[in-house]
C-alpha cells in the first residue's frame, strides 16, 4: 500500500484547512487588546446561600 494522489490531496486539504482555521482563531484571540473589566458593574449577581451557612 502507498499513499495515493487522492489520499494525499484529502490529507493535505483536511490538515491545512484545520491549521488555517486554528491559526486564524488563535491569532485573533491573542492579538486582541487586553480585557478591561468593570468589576461588579456587569457581573452576574453573587448567589448568597446564607440560609445554609452551616449546612456542612
Amino acid at each position: 500500500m502507498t499513499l495515493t494522489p487522492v489520499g494525499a490531496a484529502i490529507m493535505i486539504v483536511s490538515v491545512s484547512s484545520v491549521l488555517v482555521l486554528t491559526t486564524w482563531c488563535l491569532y485573533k484571540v491573542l492579538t486582541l487588546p487586553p480585557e478591561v473589566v468593570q468589576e461588579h458593574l456587569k457581573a452576574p449577581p453573587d448567589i448568597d446561600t446564607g440560609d445554609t451557612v452551616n449546612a456542612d
Partner: protein
Amino acid sequence: MSNSSQGGGEQWGSRIGVILAVAGSAVGLGNFLRFPGQAAQNGGGAFMLPYFISLLLLGIPLCWAEWTMGRYGGTNGFRSAPGIFSVIWPHRAAKYFGALALLVPLAIYMYYVLIEAWCLGYAFDYLMGNLQLGSEPAAYQNHFDDFIGNNANGFIYEGGSNTLVGVLVFVFLLNFVCIYRGISKGIESFCMVAMPIMTICALCVLIRVLTLDSEKLTAGLGAMWNPDPKALLAPKTWLAAAGQIFFSLSVGFGVIINYASYLRRNDDIALSGLTANSVNEFFEVCLGGLITIPAAFIFLGAAAAAQGGYGLGFVTLPNVFAVMPGGRMFGFLWFLMLFLAAITSSLSMLQPVIAFLEEGLGLRRHASATLLGLISGFGTAFVMYFSKDRAALETMDFWVGTMAIVVLALVQSILYGWIFGISKGNDELHRGALIHIPWVVQLVLKYISPLLLLGILGGTFYLDGSTYAETLMNGGVPLYSVLFIGAILAFLLLLVHIAGRRWENEGRLKYKR
C-alpha cells in the same frame, strides 16, 4: 479581575484561559484513539466528507448554542443546567431535563477517570522501563489484561493490580484538588499549563513518526487517508462521523453550558467557541490523524492499523513503541499526553455537578466536593470491580457516552431553537462578539440540527441498540450497570426537585402560567 474562590461569584481569569479550558475539555482520548480508528474503519479519507459536514451542521452550531445558553443562564444567576434550563424555559418541568446534564458528565467521569489512570499507569511503566516487552503482540495484550483486570471481576479484592489502584487514587485526588481550587485557580490554571505540555508531547511523537523511513511512512499515511468512496453509501459511515464529532467536541456533555455560565455578560462567545473547536480539531485531524494509524501500520502492518479504541491505544501502540527507535521515551511522552488530554476532560465533567450541589443545595465547596467525591468514587469502584471484559465500562459508555449525549444535545437544541428562539439566540450570541456569525447558522440550529440528532439517535439505536438490549435481557453486569445509571438519575432528579423548591422559595425561579 476578581475570582471568588467559592460560590456563584466565580469567573474565568482570561479569554485564552476559558478557551483552553473548553478545548481541554474537548480534547481527550477520542482525538487520538477513537478518531483515527473510526476513520480507518469507515472509508479512510472518504470519512472526512461526512466528518466535516457534521462539524459544520452539528458540532460548531450546537457548541455556539451551548455557549449562548450557558452565558445567558450565568448572567441570570445560574451555573448549573437545571437552573439554566429553567431560565431558558420558565416551566416547572425544565429543571428536570437539567438532571440529564448532570447525569452525563457524572456517569462518564466514573469510567473515564479509570481510563485516565490507565494512561498515567502506562506512562509510569514507560518511565520505569516496564513496558519494553519485545515484539510479541500477545505480551502487550497480557500486560493490558493484567493491568486492568480484564480476565476477572473484582481483581482488586483478590490481590490484583495494586499499581492501578494506587494510580487511580492519585488521579482521583488530583482531579478533586483542581476542582476544589475553583474555576480560575483550579481548572483554568491547570489547563493553561497542561495544554501546552500536551501539544509539545504530541508534536515530539508526530516528528518521530514523520521522520521514519519515507517509503513506510507513505504507506502508513495511505492506510489512514486513502479514500474508499463506497463507504459514503453506507449509513454507518455517516453515523460514525456524526458520533465522532459529538464525542470529540463535548457537545451534549453538559460541560460547555456550565463553563460558559462563568463568563460576563459582554464577554465574547462567538470567537471563543470557534477557537475552542478549532483547537480540538487541530489535535484530532492534524495530530491524531497523522500519528496513530500511520505508526501502527508502519511497524505492525494493516491488521494492527485496522484496530480502534482501547486495543489500538493500549496494546498496538505499546507494541509499536517497543520496536520504534527511542520507543521508551516516545511511549512515555505519548501516554503522558493521553493522561493530560484525559484529565483536562475529566475536570470538566466534575464542574457541572459541583456547581449544581453548590447553588442547588447551598453546600460550600468542601462539602460539595466531598459529596461528589463519595458519589463518583462509588461509581468508579463499581466500574473497576466489574472489570471482566470491561463489561460495566462498555455498557455505561454506550448508554451514557453514546446515547444519552445525543438525547441531551437534542433537548438543548429544542430549548435553543424552539423555546429560547433563534432571534433572541442570535442577539445573545452576538453580544460582545468579536466575529459575525451568519444568520444561516441559526436556521441550521432550529431546523437541521434537531432532525439530524433524531436521525443519529434512531440510527445508532437501530445499528447497536438491539445488541445492547439483548445483552441487558441476559442479565449480569450490563443489567446491573444500567440499573446503576438509573439509580444515579433518580438520585439526581430528587436533588433537582429539592433545589427547585429551594429556588422557588427564594423567588429565583418564576414560571409562566
